[in-house]
């Protein structure tokens, strides 16, 4: 070890190292160790091993923090900060990666696409997310963001012979690159104001200025535009429905939960870190964006007939709820964001997994008609989908209710009664379009007799997401304690 790479640095880097190492190894093992098509499923085991090692690293960091009684520790001279927030979000990313990888095997078989690159990209994207949640340096954060985004550009266009997949990838790439440009511009202004890329130094430099300083506003506005693109809130949401619809369904699932959670972790770090002193400026701005997001997301979802597109608009509206937690800005709101993203990860993944199961040799299975009569054909899938949709709508006793409850409670604590009322009103709209799917599943006649795709991984993933969606709703205490640990405000 040297002065540039101490044992603390290594300790902070282990999960990312494991993800990168296994990501590269999976790419090579595809050629050298498991070349035959029948051996491909071992790649998933290998990916699971990498995620397991990364999770072990996270657990050791958590044990270290709690045994020493520390709130956080920094590595690489403050470029990485390991705290409850980082560990919580990294746990979400690892769980999402593992679940998506489990269901991808069967899906890729049906689509007839490559396996090795896909699993490698999942691990490398997860590596980028690690730096988004732990990074406290502008350069580290930006590189982490790009690492994640580039992996997603490729995965969205993974079906090389599908026009829609290619179109989605190009749209996502162009808009993603454009938004990264905005973000880099905002970062350069922050660096110009502080003379440092460390978030702590920038916080101090911005706090020394007035909240209405034009340069602070320039930094806030451009950074916010870049971040809003990444979390797909109105008016920067246009890429999301197209990218979600065209991408392979497994990638859509991954994109909609992991990328969104990572981008929100990044957004919360920036808004509660460097930009905290300009709070009086961004609070009304965020409130307006959140209300616009709820409006567009919920109203556009009503008319959709493609379920992937419908879920894309629903995920836009969920981003609006998460933003409301930040608008409230109190510890309950920040805890609410963590709970919301945790719950959203499992319920949204679950809903997309049912669509993955609906993809069969000759049937795309993403239109509303493809779901009709699911109850008669496969009651297990229909009931699971019902649970996920109830949770997405926020109806007790599912986990989605706990998530929305904290956001609303935070708003009421912050005396934002109007916002709370608007958010509650849109739940009614959401129930309407989620129940269009339910009606189609339970009332209509089955459109085809083809049985659903099934594999051990798919059954396991559906079981885990379904179980967690119910479990967090029925017995939320341990999960709330975890989220409590992740609150950044002190």
């Amino acid at each position, binding site marked *: 070890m040297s002065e540039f790479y101490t044992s603390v640095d290594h300790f902070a880097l282990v999960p990312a190292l494991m993800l990168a190492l296994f990501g590269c190894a999976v790419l090579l093992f595809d050629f050298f160790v498991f070349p035959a098509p029948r051996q491909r499923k071992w790649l998933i085991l290998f990916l699971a091993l990498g995620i397991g090692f990364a999770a072990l690293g996270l657990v050791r960091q958590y044990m270290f923090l709690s045994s020493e009684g520390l709130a956080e520790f920094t590595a690489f001279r403050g470029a990485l900060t390991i705290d409850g927030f980082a560990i919580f979000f990294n746990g979400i990313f690892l769980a999402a990666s593992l679940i998506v990888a489990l269901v991808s095997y069967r899906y890729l078989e049906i689509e007839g696409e490559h396996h090795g690159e896909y699993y490698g990209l999942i691990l490398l994207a997860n590596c980028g997310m690690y730096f988004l949640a732990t990074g406290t340096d502008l350069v580290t954060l930006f590189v982490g963001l790009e690492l994640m985004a580039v992996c997603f550009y490729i995965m969205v266009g993974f079906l090389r012979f599908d026009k829609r997949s290619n179109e989605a990838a190009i749209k996502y790439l162009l808009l993603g690159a454009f938004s990264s440009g905005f973000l880099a511009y905002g970062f350069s202004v922050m660096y110009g104001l502080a003379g440092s890329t460390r978030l702590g130094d920038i916080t101090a430099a911005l706090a020394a200025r007035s909240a209405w300083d*034009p340069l602070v506003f320039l930094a806030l506005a451009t950074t916010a535009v870049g971040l809003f693109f990444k979390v797909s809130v109105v008016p920067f949401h246009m890429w999301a429905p197209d990218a979600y619809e065209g991408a392979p369904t497994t990638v859509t699932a991954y994109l909609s939960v992991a990328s969104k959670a990572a981008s929100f972790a990044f957004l919360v770090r920036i808004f509660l870190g460097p930009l905290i002193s300009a709070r009086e400026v961004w609070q009304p701005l965020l409130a307006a964006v959140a209300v616009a997001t709820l409006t567009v997301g919920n109203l556009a979802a009503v008319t959709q007939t493609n379920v992937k597109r419908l879920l894309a608009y629903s995920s836009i509206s969920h981003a609006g709820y998460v933003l409301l937690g930040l608008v409230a800005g109190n510890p309950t709101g920040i805890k609410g964001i963590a709970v919301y993203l945790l719950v959203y990860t499992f319920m949204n993944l679950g809903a997309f997994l049912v669509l993955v199961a609906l993809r069969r040799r000759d049937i795309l299975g993403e239109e509303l008609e493809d779901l009709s009569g699911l109850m008669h054909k496969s009651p297990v899938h229909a009931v699971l989908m019902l649970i996920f949709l109830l949770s997405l709508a926020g109806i007790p006793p599912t986990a989605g209710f706990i998530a929305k409850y904290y956001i609303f409670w935070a708003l009421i604590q912050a005396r934002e009664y109007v916002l709370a009322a608007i958010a509650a009103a849109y739940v009614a709209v959401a129930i309407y379009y989620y129940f269009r799917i339910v009606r189609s599943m339970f009332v209509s006649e089955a459109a085809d007799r083809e049985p659903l795709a099934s594999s051990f991984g798919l059954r396991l993933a559906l079981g885990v997401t379904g179980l967690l969606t119910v479990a967090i709703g029925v017995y939320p205490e341990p999960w709330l304690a975890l989220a409590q640990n992740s609150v950044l405000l002190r």
Partner: protein
Amino acid sequence: MPEGYLPIFALGLFAAIFAVAVLGLAKLVRPSAPGEVKQEAYECGIRAVSDSRGRYTVRFYVVAILFVIFDVETIFLFPWAVYYRQLGWFGVAEVAVFLAILIVGYIWAYKKGALEWI
């Protein structure tokens, strides 16, 4: 606003005014005599054979991307070579990690057949 930037703004303003003024003046003074020969790409050169926007094989693009990767690699190796003695074994280890990642990509591209022409 920082005052140090004033000369830059003045320069930008002057450049804009100068360009508009000169082009505007030329527009007023010059005679206008458009012709077909004048529209050609090389008015006084060799006659154009065909359109430059022809189709060429996509393989050039793969080779070009591989070239860019290894070009960037050398850019990263140069500063290390300059500070080789000061960085010591730590620098060697860092560069080894960097090269290992690139070599994984190289092996992948090779096994995928990116370097085979047909």
